[in-house]
């Protein structure tokens, strides 16, 4: 997004200076010269509601891309996904080579809260959208959307879905003190070591100390069932 913005700004400034130059120029022939075609913005408003009871979501990452995926069930998580799923840090996901445009929430999204983010790409209506965010009171649980085809969306159209919770498979679901970055524990987020199954799967839920896992820092309040979020995508331009 930053890259795109700066490019667009640069283009805008150049166009503006040409226009200004044209205005101040007495030679009318120069004013009617055709400018280079302006890039056409294609924008999507993404509205996400956190439907969990007590699982804040890490800053939501939304990316547009043509190839690749942020994760695949049954495959090992990338380090970028692991970093987000264990610690809520989405910076590596946003910096992936496949990303053509992106946007990130500025802060965590609390339970019951709704946030709208806009992602914009130039001159392309058939990108794929992926979204990822951590359930921060888990070891490595996350939710999101994978490779949603946007080509069918015309301006004004909406598409919506409920999202399920996945397990990155990179950190054992110990629920132990010091292992969970969310407010339930304020423990460690990302750790390089992989001490779990090392493939992405659906999440089996948290157990919690209230259900007999005496070493868990989580309570019954942190338990969850699918879906975890409701997401609506609207193409606005």
């Amino acid at each position: 997004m930053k890259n795109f913005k700066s490019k667009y700004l640069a283009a805008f400034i150049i166009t503006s200076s040409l226009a200004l130059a044209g205005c101040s120029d007495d030679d009318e022939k120069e004013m009617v010269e055709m400018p280079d075609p302006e890039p056409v913005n294609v924008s999507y408003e993404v509205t996400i509601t956190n439907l969990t009871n007590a699982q804040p979501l890490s800053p939501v990452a939304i990316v547009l891309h043509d190839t690749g995926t942020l994760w695949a069930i049954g495959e090992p998580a990338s380090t970028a996904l692991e970093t987000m799923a264990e610690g809520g840090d989405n910076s590596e996901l946003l910096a992936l080579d496949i990303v053509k445009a992106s946007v990130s929430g500025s802060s965590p999204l609390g339970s019951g809260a709704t946030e709208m983010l806009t992602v914009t790409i130039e001159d392309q209506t058939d990108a794929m959208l992926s979204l990822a965010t951590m359930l921060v009171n888990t070891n490595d649980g996350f939710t999101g959307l994978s490779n949603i085809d946007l080509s069918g969306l015309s301006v004004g159209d909406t598409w919506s879905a409920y999202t399920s919770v996945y397990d990155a498979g990179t950190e054992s679901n110990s629920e132990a003190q010091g292992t969970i970055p969310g407010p339930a524990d304020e423990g460690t987020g990302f750790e390089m070591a992989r001490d779990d199954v090392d493939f992405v799967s659906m999440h089996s839920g948290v157990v919690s100390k209230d259900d007999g896992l005496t070493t868990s820092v989580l309570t019954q309040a942190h338990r969850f069932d699918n879906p975890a979020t409701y997401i609506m995508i609207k193409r606005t331009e």
Partner: protein
Amino acid sequence: MKIKTKNTITTLAILSGALLCQSTFAAEIDVKITNLTQGIYFTPVIIAAHTSDASIYTLGSAASDELQMMAEGGDISGLSTALTTASADILENPAGGLLAPGMSTEGMLSTADTNMYLSLGSMLLPTNDGFVGLDSWMIPTEAGTYTVYLNGYDAGTEANDEIINGGGMPGAAGIPVDPGAANGTGAMGVTDMENNEMVHVHRGVIGDTDVAGGYSDLDSTVHRWLNPVAMLTVTVK
């Protein structure tokens, strides 16, 4: 409650606009709802066809007083009144009482031209303020049979203490009853807090196996569920 009463002039304008400019779809529909759970009863179900201005609940928003009445005590009279005011077509209590686990009930609905959306609500019993819901599902215009799976939601209006004490009035703590009589008694209570006070996905009950005390009067081997909790079959004739 999002139900708004349109003034007559607006209604006439919309009706005449609809007649002049676009086709609308009065429909005869059969609905069948199946309780997919193993140990949770549904209180009298309310099903309504309504306009886009009305709803029974909105995820991520606070429950209406009428929804609270249904979710905490199974009383659908408030919702029925509000939906009637909104000119909805309503099917109330097709099961003639409780819908037991694994059971189905059926009914018919004749929908007016502008009532193009279907919603449903019923309390999950025994829970504090859990309900099964469908929010504003667009009724297909093409004849056929359609299946929708429904989730269990938490109205966000009452702490899930899991104490069975007859409490069913809005604001009264506790669960009215376990119709299956699989409950314990004398529990201390699971929690007195409601983390997410918006309508959200129910995290499930925790229960325990202590029939004469413990934290919960619910039985963890009987009263748990995972989504989906209901199947709705809609036949458009």
